[in-house]
């Protein structure tokens, strides 16, 4: 495989992942005690959950055309973040007893419902309101596509090498799939954490004022992903003795 194609795929995938994180309602520690909007954990945990699910579903489509791998990755990651947000909302609504509400906007941009008077004084909202949920699904789709893209190109690059080649009777090369999977996961984590640094740990979604920092985060992800892509070339050029 052309090394530049691999670097390009890793860079585009990294940008999709880093950009996707900006859409996900990461609430952090304040959300864990229902005093801020979003899922009550950090970006690294959400990246681990939805990123790994996306890569597993993308890997399940190994050997399929590119669009199917991307679709599988996007579906897996979006489904996982969706389930996380839904179950989180159950806990916020029926466990904590708060209304899912955003403190960053006065009216929900999607449903048009009033937000302001439902925010408990002294807090920055609770739970995952509609706009955050939709934003989170978009983020999951973007991240899943990015992870799937990286997985697809590394797998197809590796499988041409003798050490990773298909054995008779095999339809997928397990060692190439594992190597591509762990590499894509690593790119996922690096870009998720860079995006997390950019948003200062918490964000509500595309309606949050912090979302304007997206270009800066994307620039950071481009630089980091290009360097990781160059390092990744060694996997293909070096090989196995």
């Amino acid at each position, binding site marked *: 495989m052309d090394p530049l194609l691999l670097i390009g795929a890793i860079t585009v995938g990294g940008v999709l992942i880093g950009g996707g994180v900006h859409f996900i309602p990461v609430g952090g520690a304040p959300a864990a005690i229902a005093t801020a909007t979003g899922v009550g954990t950090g970006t690294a945990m959400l990246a681990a959950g939805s990123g790994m699910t996306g890569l597993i579903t993308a890997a399940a489509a190994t050997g399929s055309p590119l669009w199917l791998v991307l679709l599988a990755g996007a579906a897996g990651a979006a489904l996982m973040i969706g389930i996380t947000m839904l179950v989180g909302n159950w806990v916020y609504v029926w466990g904590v007893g708060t209304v899912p509400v955003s403190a960053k906007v006065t009216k929900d941009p999607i449903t048009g419902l009033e937000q302001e008077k439902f925010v408990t004084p002294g807090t920055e909202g609770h739970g995952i309101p509609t706009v955050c949920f939709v934003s989170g699904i978009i983020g999951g789709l973007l991240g899943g596509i990015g992870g799937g893209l990286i997985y697809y190109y590394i797998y197809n690059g590796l499988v041409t090498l003798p050490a990773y080649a298909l054995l008779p009777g095999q339809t997928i090369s397990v060692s190439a799939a594992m190597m591509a999977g762990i590499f894509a996961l690593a790119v996922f984590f690096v870009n998720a954490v860079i995006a997390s640094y950019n948003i200062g*740990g918490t964000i509500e979604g595309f309606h949050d004022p912090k979302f304007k920092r997206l270009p800066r985060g994307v620039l950071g992800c481009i630089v980091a992903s290009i360097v990781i892509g160059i390092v990744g070339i060694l996997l293909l050029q070096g090989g196995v003795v």
Partner: protein
Amino acid sequence: MSVAAGGGGTSSIDPKQTLALGLIGGLVGIYLVPFVPILGPLFGALGAVCAIIWGADAIARVASYGLGTGVPSIGYMSLAIGVVGSLAGIAGAVMFGSSSVLIGPIFGVVLAMIVGAVVALVGTKVLKMKIPILVRCTVELSGAAAISVIGFSAAIAGSIGMSAILTTVVATGFIGLLFILNTMAIQHPFNACLGPQEDRSRTLKLAASTAFMAMAIVGILGIGVSKVWWVIAIIGAIAWFISISAFIQSSAENAASVKWSGLWPEEEM
């Protein structure tokens, strides 16, 4: 997500000591694997333990500034960089000729440190993070992560060559386990001990216990591959017991008092 303290506090441990322990101890351990017959993998695992203690000290220094994203995030990121660097380094060493397997680990550690430096520079220059030691500590963390991954991989595979690691660590999926296992071992000690009364020597006792716990698990992963898996597992378990006892003892000594409060009264239940 945890909110760390205002940062820059004095540490009771000199960072140079942990750096020397991790870098020299880790690399010596890894390089003993191909040269010491039979017991080689044990030294690889011990090298990884040294690297984890180094990484736990580095994460304690950088995360005491308050990253805004919690302690685990930088741990996951550095292990991601460590995995990328170590696998690319071990595979890429072959480019210098088929007899150059031995430069693989050092090449991997250097690659990880370079990627770590780039990511940290992105943090300070592009994202304008105001943590003065971010670059230095991310480079140290990435190096520690790479050494810990290579050390444990060599302990399972019994070799530092790519073909053995590929079949016994990567293709079996253990690399994913090592990713999370080493992240936990490196980030947990400071995440558990942070606060105004954080004492670095106590934090590093916990780091030793998490590292040896990981080593015991790595020993079990070597069943069927390594002949000395049981030695690694038993030494890891014994050392875990010693280090966790030391940690609990120093926690009890540093506490104002330790009392069992009892359960809440019956009528309030």
